[in-house]
């Protein structure tokens, strides 16, 4: 077996040193009735590298890969071009096969990268500080709601109807068990969000208001009024960003008064990967740092006075505080944070702004082209690289029919909001720099055929 260096001679020599007759002597503490006599029956034995690879190629071919077809899906996961050097660097063994940097003298590579990542995220979101990553956007969102509860000592969260329904579901799951109340609603196919409802709902019991920006239908609204009302009542504003590229074009939530900004960082560096692993981004105002979940990297000096980095403020964390920790998170998304950070470094501000501009321009072109199809209407007044169309019929079968024509043509709201009949004609279309003018044309032609 190619991953096992011990030879039988080694094994015998080692058993002799241990003073055991056979390997079974080392398993004496396992009760006999729980010991298996041999390899588990019915499971295949070992396989060569070639055989395993062949199995995976066969399965991989059964999937429609995004880059092989005109592709327009978004709703929390976006297809962007990832520069080749990103994947090269994250495969360096020194990054790939390192552990969490618990021994800082031999982990400065990871630690410096995390310090740079934290700074990039904080600046992108317009916040003072950011942590070293969470699992993904949806769990970061729940952690932010929990954090707002600890800060305000209140337990009512008001969720915008524009928050990704999976994020709402995760929050609902947790709230059921923590006793928090969630004030949530379904979106409607209208050009504006339900900010009026949010403003109404904020009161002296509210711990936080959670608003996605741009929202699940792609709409963009100023958060300032909600921030002001929340602060007036001692509540926090949590902004959720599922498409960080947007912040190369539109104002940062922190600039509009958000107290905590969380997001999904998958767009930069990480790739689609059928939903994971992704990288949760988590940033906030400096005064809340001791209530943050997750790891934090900080600057310090070594015994010779040289600058260095360490994990810090760990008295918030489970390995020190156990049941009093701010979160139970341990393993996070380190390597995805690295991928995000490399991609952001390659872009720089100039590249990020250019990328955002290209996304927006292509999305505008696509929206204009698709709404030329009879019966297709644009729901949004505002959008970045994602918008919602109202089709003249239910969108889910249309998406399937498009796939049969080899076009991956958006996310039907029926997939995300089953049984919400008001939404079933909604189709959310994302357009990034990877969509060409021909792709848009192919999509429009196929959609027209299916609808006619």
């Amino acid at each position, binding site marked *: 077996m190619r991953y*096992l*260096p*011990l030879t039988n001679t080694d094994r015998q020599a080692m058993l002799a040193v*241990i003073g055991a007759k056979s*390997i079974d*002597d*080392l398993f004496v*503490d*396992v009760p006999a009735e729980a010991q*298996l006599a041999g*390899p*588990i029956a019915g499971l*295949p034995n*070992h396989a060569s590298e070639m055989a395993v690879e062949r199995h995976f190629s066969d*399965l991989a071919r059964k*999937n*429609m*890969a*995004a880059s092989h077809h005109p592709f327009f899906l978004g709703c929390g996961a976006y*297809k962007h071009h990832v520069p080749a050097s990103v*994947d090269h660097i994250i495969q360096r063994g*020194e990054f790939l*096969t*390192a*552990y969490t940097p618990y*021994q800082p*003298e031999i982990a400065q*590579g990871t630690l410096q*990268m995390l310090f740079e990542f934290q700074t990039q995220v904080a600046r*992108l979101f317009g916040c*003072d500080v950011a942590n070293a990553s969470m*699992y*993904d956007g949806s769990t970061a969102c729940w952690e932010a709601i929990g954090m707002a509860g600890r800060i305000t000592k209140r337990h009512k969260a008001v969720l915008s109807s524009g928050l990704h*329904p999976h994020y709402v579901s995760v929050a609902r799951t947790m709230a059921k068990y923590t006793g928090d109340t969630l004030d949530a609603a379904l979106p409607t196919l209208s050009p504006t969000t339900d900010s009026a409802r949010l403003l109404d709902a904020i009161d002296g019991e509210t711990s936080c208001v959670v608003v996605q920006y741009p929202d699940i239908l792609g*709409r963009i609204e100023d958060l300032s009024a909600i921030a002001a009302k929340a602060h007036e009542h001692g509540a926090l504003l949590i902004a959720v960003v599922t498409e960080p590229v947007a912040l190369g*074009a*539109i*104002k940062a939530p922190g600039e509009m008064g958000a107290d905590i900004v969380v997001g999904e960082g998958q767009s930069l560096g990480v790739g689609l990967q*059928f939903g994971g*692993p992704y990288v949760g981004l988590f940033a906030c105002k400096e005064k809340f740092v001791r209530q943050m979940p997750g790891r934090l990297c*900080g*600057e310090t000096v070594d*015994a010779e006075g040289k600058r260095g980095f360490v994990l810090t403020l760990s008295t918030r964390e489970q390995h020190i*505080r156990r049941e009093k920790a701010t979160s*139970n998170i*341990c*393993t996070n998304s380190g*390597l995805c944070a690295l991928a995000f950070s*490399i991609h952001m470094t*390659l872009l*720089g*501000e100039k*590249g990020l702004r250019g990328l955002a501009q290209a996304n*927006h*321009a292509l999305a505008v072109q696509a929206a204009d082209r698709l709404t030329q199809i009879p019966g297709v209407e644009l729901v949004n007044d505002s959008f970045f690289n994602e918008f919602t169309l109202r089709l003249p019929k239910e969108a889910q079968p249309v998406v*399937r029919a498009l*796939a049969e024509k080899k076009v*991956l043509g958006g996310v039907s709201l*029926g997939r995300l909001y*089953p049984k919400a009949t008001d939404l079933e004609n909604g189709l959310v279309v994302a357009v990034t720099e990877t969509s060409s003018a021909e792709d848009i044309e192919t999509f429009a032609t196929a959609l027209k055929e299916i609808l006619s």
Partner: protein
Amino acid sequence: MSVLNQSGWKPEMGPSGDTKPATFTGNRALMLEEALIFEIGTTDTTGVDLPEVGGVASRLGGLERNRTIGLPGLSEPETVRHYTRLSRQNYAIDLGFFPLGSCTMKHNPRLNEKVARMAGFADVHPLQPVETVQGALAVINELAVWLIELTGMHGVAMTPKAGAHGELCGILAIKAALEARGDPRSVILVPESAHGTNPATAAFAGFSVENIPATSEGRVDLDALKARLGPDVAGVMITNPNTCGLFERDMKAISDAVHAAGGYVYCDGANFNAIVGRVRPGDLGIDAMHINLHKTFSTPHGGGGPGSGPVVLSEALSPYGPLPFTERHADGRYSLVEEETVGERHPHSFGRMTAFHGQMGMFTRALSYIMSHGADGLRQVAEDAVLNANYILRSLEGTMDAPFAHSGPCMHEALFSDNGLADGFTTLDIAKGLIDEGYHPMTVYFPLVVHGAMLIEPTETESKATLDQFIGAMRSVVQRAKAGDPSLKSAPHHAPRRRLDETLAARKPMLVWHETEEAVAAE
């Protein structure tokens, strides 16, 4: 002292041969210092070329971002060099022995990386129509079947994102099961030796946490546990093999007692590597157990993550498991049970734990590893892991205090304490001494039940020669600590950095980069 060159060539040392002159750059040959991107990049530099897209009238709702963001860019060559230089300041499995107890730092096969990057897995969107992702769903399902068979359990929840998230999944399933029978139990019992995530998880889900005492052998005290069980106890969280590296011999009796008292048994499966293919936790009566794919099943730790923590469930808890999950139909097609179809298919689910369907990129890697080893190879994995750990335990117990060595063989990891070191010398000094010897230190100060704990987990992917050299190095470092060698107190001497001031970092947290005042003034 350096070893003399056998060829007879003698380097010219000169009068100051032993003192290292300072260099102009601060670099020392291959040890290269690297500045922060904020110090070397500019907001006008970019390492990407973007498609030319004609201008359009903006529809951004009047929210254009006008202020500078402050994100520096680097060209591609500078980027590659920046991160390559940083990478060289990291220790990693690829470089050497990484015996971090409880973390299972085994070799990460590159085949796993290759298959995970196939376009059919890496480049599919989680919300594509299920007809277009049948191969991806097959991977999830095949891995699920392996995990169920290897653990002898009834079902598996694939979506948890890491071990701690898996713990949460198991605890929420327990909570949902109790709620379904109208039983408001509020206490979870956890041994003191447990990983911090166990009590943190139980508390996160709204339970209060109480300690289970241990015996002098380092195992759960069954009698004390039985005495504490009662109508308020929702369940226990037991790590098996435990964090002292011992198999909980009474596991079946523990499960039976907990069940008899109306509770559920959560098993922390972080240490599954010791028993995979030889013991099925399902035979020991447990109700839920997470499996860290990033430990037992070789997916890379990536400097802190990502992981993946599928949770196997008993028949009693399976109905409450989370959404979504895959289903294989008689005709070989796969479907996803999500919110859309859950009403009929899985009405008691406690709900969703994350967006989308879990850590697909880890599933491909883990399945690639599992298929490579197969049922026979996985059994050999457990045996070699346990053999390597016992070899270390018996080779070092004469030099170091091994508090549970008398309890019998260890499983996959060997636990030592700081007992016997010279006054003022600690476990931390041993760890830093090992860094100079070219090793990543073992886990230190965990578990909490042993003073100055040193937990050594070699894994099965290390050769005897590697272990022998490590044992020699460990003996040497421990002898220095026993003899009170002051140079050990200031170790490491040869790492990119000397000991770092953690107190300063916590007292004055600097979590993001700020331009120095001089630089701001100069602008």
